[in-house]
């Protein structure tokens, strides 16, 4: 291969390295430190209940990041997240409970097993796009759950399986706080990985596949390889989330992984922002906390509307749907876009207008 220009343009290395660093400004560095402090010091200030909610939020964030890698980055819609979450949960249950491995081995293995199965179901992506792929993943959802229900010798069928909280030496992570820390570390690693992935060669290839598959091929990108890879990487995270969730609830059963779970995850990345790691996190928090907030609102209105508490879940369902539609119509960029708009607004403040 030849260089297009004979001359050397000088050494830019130091400046490029700095330019390309993740935290390339002082503000970003400070922000990062504050964020880490908040995450790690939170249990000292927040109530147990709040920590429990945060644990659910960050585990969902891991799954949402995973789904976003597939759907947001690579443009392949999956309505089968629920089942893949189940694969992760069951893999972890089988490895720890039936086979006696330690959680610390089971967790990564659960991710890898889910990645392999996810990759397998990604094979139809060679020929299918958009709607058709979405339906194929929906079918995968039903077929995987059917297998889980039926492979009784492996999965204990419909009765589900019991898991234990992980231990470090003699210390079991049975408290809210300790499990929160475990999830938080997994979450930070996932986010770190995903953010880097986006700006590396693989991430760029994913975007290319999503935006223009023809041009991507001309860039030397093997579409099939990258599509399946996206399925596998995405499923890895979903598997990890599934495993974490399973050890959190200490039980897996097919009913955990129904189609509505898949829909919730799709809603997370859509409301958070497609193709944005930060958006996945915002969306996961939003969707997980939405019922809590509605509950509070309805609770505080109960003096005026006494009967509402009885139809609370129906109301939740209604609002969930309405929120999705409103976001799609008025803010397709999702929460991530709203966030950056807000940040820009304050950056220019007081000259915003």
């Amino acid at each position: 291969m030849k260089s297009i220009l004979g001359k050397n343009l000088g050494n830019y290395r130091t400046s490029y390295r700095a330019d390309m660093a993740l935290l390339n400004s002082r503000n970003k560095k400070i922000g990062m430190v504050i964020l880490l402090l908040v995450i790690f010091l939170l249990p000292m200030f927040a109530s147990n209940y709040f920590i429990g909610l945060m644990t659910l939020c960050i585990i969902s964030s891991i799954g949402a990041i995973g789904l976003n890698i597939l759907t947001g980055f690579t443009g392949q819609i999956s309505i089968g997240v629920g089942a893949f979450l189940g694969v992760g949960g069951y893999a972890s249950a089988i490895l720890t409970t039936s086979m006696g491995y330690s959680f610390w081995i089971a967790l990564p293995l659960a991710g890898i097993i889910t990645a392999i199965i996810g990759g397998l179901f990604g094979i139809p992506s060679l020929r299918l796009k958009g709607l058709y792929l979405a339906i194929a993943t929906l079918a995968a959802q039903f077929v995987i759950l059917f297998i889980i229900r039926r492979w009784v010798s492996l999965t204990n069928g419909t009765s589900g399986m019991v898991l234990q909280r992980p231990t470090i030496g003699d210390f079991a992570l049975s408290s809210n706080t300790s499990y929160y820390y475990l999830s938080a570390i997994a979450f930070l690693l996932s986010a770190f990985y995903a953010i880097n992935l986006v700006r590396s060669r693989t991430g760029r290839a994913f975007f290319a596949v999503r935006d223009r598959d023809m041009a991507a091929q001309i860039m030397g990108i093997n579409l099939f390889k990258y599509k399946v890879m996206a399925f596998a990487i995405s499923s890895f995270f979903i598997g990890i989330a599934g495993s974490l969730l399973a050890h959190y609830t200490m039980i897996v059963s097919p009913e955990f992984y129904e189609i509505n779970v898949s829909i919730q995850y799709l809603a997370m990345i859509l409301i958070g922002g497609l193709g944005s790691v930060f958006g996945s996190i915002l969306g996961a928090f939003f969707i997980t906390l939405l019922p809590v907030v509605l509950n509070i609102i309805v609770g505080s209105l109960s003096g005026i509307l006494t009967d509402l508490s009885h139809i609370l879940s129906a109301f939740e369902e209604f609002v969930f749907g309405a929120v999705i539609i409103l976001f799609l119509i008025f803010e397709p960029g999702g929460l991530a876009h709203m966030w950056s708009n807000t940040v820009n607004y304050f950056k220019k403040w007081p000259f915003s207008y």
Partner: protein
Amino acid sequence: MKSKKFLSLIIGLVVLVFMAACGDDADGSGGSGDDQEVTIGTLADITGATGDTGTPYSEGQDHFFEYLESTGGIDGLDITHLSEDYAYEISDAQRIYQQYRDRDGVSAILGWGTGDTEALRQQVASDQIPFMSASYSENLKDLDESPYNFFVAASYSDQGRMVLEWIKDNHEGGDPTVALLYNDTGFGRSPIDDIKDYAEEIGVEIVDEQIIDLAATDAQSQLLNMEEHDPDYGIIQQTWAATTTILRDADTLDIDTQFIGLNQAVGEGLIDQAGDLSEGFMGVLTHALPYEDVPGMDEYIEYLDSQDMTVDDINMQHVAGWVVAKVMVEGVKNAADSTDGEITGEDVLAGLEAIEDLDLGGLAAPVTFTDELHAGTEEIRLGIVEDGQWKAITDYDSYR
């Protein structure tokens, strides 16, 4: 653009409300005087997949607690009852459970179906919170696995065993043959192995099994297959909707098998849905029917009167809810007697395990819990639909 701002405004508001509300760790402040305080939380399915039976069940609980309060409550005890609809969704059940445990500090939980019960049984064990639900699954009897789970009625397996016993005793002409019809869920499969084992034990032949989905539009292929074995009886472990489908298609196909439902297939709702098809259908009665004249109905009717309601407004599921709340309160009472301090989940566990032969005035079979057995009874009655009404044809009895 206007709508965009509107959207941001709403989100900002939501965040604010959330922040404001999550700050406090409401551990049941307030309360009157020196009363011991205890909080009980209910996980109800009102709008979910099993909402048709879940709603009266949770209303029965609400009504019992209201009744208790209206009669002045229990001396020295201040019971707070919370209830939330989890719509039969596990993630919601998980969230509400955390809220009950961490925010409301409940000492016991009244759950509902197999889904939430199974999903939470490990957690309630490690959090030491007694959990009493309407999932009468035999494997909850295993106290090593589910030390904090309770149920007040006979397990599905015990119901099935009793039905087999009845078949054996009452069948005329030759050896009876039985088919099992259930759905592919934890609930559906729960009693199947036990029923098969017991059938073998007492020498009743199970000739066929059919799986019929909870939401099935039709069950003809299954019933045709069943008909190949021509069973005398079909034991149904389903909800009302699927039972109706089975009865309808059996009628269509002229199948003369006598169907007998376990308790979830039984109740007034089945008659509403299946209409004439339910005539002659038999089933397990775990609780009293509202129109039965039993002593336990008196306080019930007293409460209904105060609410301008009659027994026509309630059904057997409502009675089941009332009963479960009553039993739970009994356990809490025992717990309060044994401790002066805060009533913990462990105290309630001990209080429940102290319940012996609790007479429910005919609303249900007498309930006994011990530290070895958390299934309140093995006794059921069998009933049949006649003239659009359930009628008991046996007394409370167990298979033993």
